[in-house]
């Protein structure tokens, strides 16, 4: 009996890897976190939801759509400043002259009001006092992966993306890591859908188990959930 | 038999035509733009006029007063359009057979194809036909729908004389076998004289004259088709067929010779004698090649604009018109009451001017 997992698209590489090591059948449906949450709200045939966004998991939880006791913030991530391969690393802090680094180029980010990576990024720049200087130079795209692509293609000199993304793209280096304290913690919550606990348990157990942890870590994620 | 009354506005043009025609073929006659096609479209039900009544025999096809206006497909029509309107996506054969899908009885294709000379074209598409070929297919398509009312809008206009001569008898037969009433638009006096049971003359959307072919075509005041159309129509009977290819007619005792016609001895016949082809003589002429010499009395002489005059002659066979010069009329001393002879060539009564009555 296969287990159906609705997972944030940014997890694809890692989760495909994990599922490949699971000896049951896993059906993985990737989409944006908001979309997945709405679909669960509308009765999607999911056993497990795995989002990149705690807000939407909170919504599902308050709607009683997930089995609360199965919810775990499984993964964590870090925000990095991405630049072209070989660019000089920088220390990210209030002293950073981001505007000068950009020149008349732009800073690629996910949508700063809507998409988690963008929301975290704006919060981090804000708390470091950098936002005002770059606010008008930001190029927002609909997901963090597209922001990475802009950097990767040289369309922009810099972007704010997840550490996992920067790691996976050979044209891009992480020039610096945003201090964890500069933004709310980046969490990837996972839970069984209410009423589907039975189908979900085995896979949830595997996800939180040591094999999965190793795989996630190898993709650059911080594995939490202890 | 065919009762039509239509009132309809088209821009500046107002159609207000009413006529009542007996069984047979009714010709709509009139100048370009006089409203002939408009009348036919109303009869066909393609136009719903502001007010109108169309009746064929007992069948009411439309009566706006009663709120009845049958759609074209329920009128049992065979409409030969002025502009062909063949189906471009169908072959000639499929065009011809189109109406058969919807008619009860199945007319045979072969005779119509034969008459219209379409045999070699059956598998072509209309796009690969000449103008006259298209027109012939359009005629065939309408006839093969087995209509109970034929509407023909200048069906022969695009055809050469030889082809016309082949098709005309077919319309005659349709008319005579009382297969169905026919409403026919034509500009050709010869066609009218030969085919028409009734002629309705339209002018500016109104009926200005109506009558039998003989009446209307004998009226020099009408002559809508130009001076050449004036002529008289005599009613006659076939008296004998001669060996040398001539047929002898008896028009109320008057002998007339003309080229062999297909009607049997005793059959009634109408002969149109064009006014311009009649020569008058005060004395019975001798030694002429013309075989028909009709004695009569001058009834009236009407002088026109030009150098000509129309002399109306009463003969035993009926009225005969002659169009001669005023100079001749004076030279011969013609005046009402004067007796004289009308000389008509045998062959001047051409085949297309002869029709079963």
């Amino acid at each position: 009996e296969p287990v159906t997992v609705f997972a944030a698209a940014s997890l694809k590489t890692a989760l495909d890897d994990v599922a490949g090591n699971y000896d049951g059948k896993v059906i993985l449906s990737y989409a944006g976190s908001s979309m997945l949450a709405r679909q669960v709200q509308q009765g999607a045939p999911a056993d497990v939801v795995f989002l990149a966004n705690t807000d939407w998991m909170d919504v599902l939880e308050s709607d009683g759509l997930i089995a609360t006791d199965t919810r775990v913030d499984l993964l964590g991530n870090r925000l990095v400043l991405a630049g072209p391969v070989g660019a000089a690393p920088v220390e990210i802090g209030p002293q950073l002259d981001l505007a000068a680094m950009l020149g008349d180029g732009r800073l690629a980010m996910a949508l700063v009001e809507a998409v988690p990576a963008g929301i975290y990024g704006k919060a981090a720049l804000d708390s470091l006092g950098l936002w005002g200087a770059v606010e008008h130079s930001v190029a927002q795209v609909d997901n963090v992966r597209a922001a990475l692509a802009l950097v990767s293609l040289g369309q922009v000199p810099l972007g704010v993306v997840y550490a996992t993304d920067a790691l996976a793209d050979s044209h891009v280096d992480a020039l610096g890591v945003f201090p964890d304290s500069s933004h709310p913690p980046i969490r990837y919550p996972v839970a069984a859908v209410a009423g589907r606990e039975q189908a979900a348990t085995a896979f949830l157990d595997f996800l939180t188990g040591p094999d999965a942890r190793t795989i996630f870590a190898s993709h650059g994620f911080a594995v939490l959930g202890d | 038999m065919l009762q039509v009354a239509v009132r309809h506005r088209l821009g500046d043009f107002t159609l207000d035509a009413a006529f009542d025609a007996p069984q047979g073929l009714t010709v709509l006659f009139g100048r370009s733009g006089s409203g002939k096609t408009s009348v036919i479209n109303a009869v066909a039900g393609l136009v719903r006029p502001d007010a109108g009544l169309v009746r064929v025999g007992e069948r009411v096809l439309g009566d706006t007063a009663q709120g009845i206006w049958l759609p074209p497909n329920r009128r049992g029509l065979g409409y030969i359009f002025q502009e062909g309107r063949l189906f471009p996506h169908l072959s000639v054969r499929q065009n011809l057979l189109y109406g058969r899908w919807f008619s009860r009885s199945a007319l045979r294709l072969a005779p119509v194809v034969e008459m219209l000379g379409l045999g070699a074209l059956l598998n072509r598409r209309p796009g690969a036909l000449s103008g006259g070929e298209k027109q012939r297919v359009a005629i065939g398509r309408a006839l093969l729908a087995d209509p109970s009312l034929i509407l023909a809008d200048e069906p022969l206009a695009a055809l050469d004389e030889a082809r016309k001569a082949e098709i005309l008898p077919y319309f005659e037969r349709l008319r005579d076998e009382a297969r169905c009433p026919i409403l026919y638009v034509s500009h050709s006096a010869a066609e009218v004289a030969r085919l028409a049971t009734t002629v309705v003359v339209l002018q500016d959307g109104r009926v200005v004259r109506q009558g039998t072919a003989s009446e209307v075509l004998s009226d020099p005041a009408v002559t809508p088709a130009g001076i050449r159309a004036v002529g008289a129509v005599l009613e006659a009977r076939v008296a004998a067929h001669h060996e040398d290819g001539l047929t002898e007619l008896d028009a109320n005792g008057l002998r007339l010779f003309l080229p062999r016609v297909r009607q049997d001895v005793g059959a009634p016949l109408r002969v149109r004698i064009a006014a311009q082809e009649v020569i008058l003589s005060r004395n019975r002429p001798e030694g002429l090649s013309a075989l028909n010499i009709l004695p009569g009395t001058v009834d009236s002489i009407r002088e026109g604009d030009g150098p000509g005059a129309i002399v109306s002659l009463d003969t035993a066979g009926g009225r005969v018109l002659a169009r001669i010069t005023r100079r001749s009329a004076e030279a011969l001393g013609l005046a009402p009451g004067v007796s004289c002879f009308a000389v008509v060539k045998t062959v001047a009564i051409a085949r297309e001017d002869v029709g079963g009555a």
Partner: protein
Amino acid sequence: MEWLSPAEWEAVRLSLRVSFWATLVALPFGLFVAYALARWRFPGKQVVNGLVHLPLILPPVVTGYLLLLVFSPRAPVGGFLQSLGVTFAFHWTGAALAAGIMGFPLMVRAMRLSIEAVDPMLEQAAATLGASRIWVFATVTLPMVLPGVLAGSILAFAKAMGEFGATITFVSNIPGQTQTLPSAIYAFLQVPGGEASALRLVLVAVAVAMLALLLSEWVSRRVAARVGGA
């Protein structure tokens, strides 16, 4: 070499199935609506016209979301349909529905243009020969608008092959069930390094759609040759 993984083959098959049915089922509706818009006058005509164009105007995600709101098993319409055994949400039929709706405006426009180009005189001629309205349509109008019907269908098919936003929103992206080619491509593009895999799928999608396109051009030329000239 295994060029496509089984799951990817499945996505190709599914996209074909979805596009085929979306086009086929939309066709009669599209033809009817196109005819009505081209030839009839009725109150609310502009409303219908607007509704038809709606999927074009709305961002696809919105269309998908609206579909989800209407057809999810939790919604009245979706619930009613489910009680009849008809499921759209999270089902390939839903993907077909979404694709059909997204392609509908394209289909209707093409057909409508063709219908408007048919000379009513020919339809009149058919009527005088005894053909009722429906027969006139079947024997004259329809054959003459075939190029438009084909053009509309191929547009709808191509659109269905490429539709993504509404589909993924409405039926999600479940491999083997609702994962069409574009959804699979999307998933690859969401992760760094997925471009090569995405490219393979893009090529497959393009190849399939081009085949369909060539086929439609060929049929269209044959039809045009038959009708050629008046």
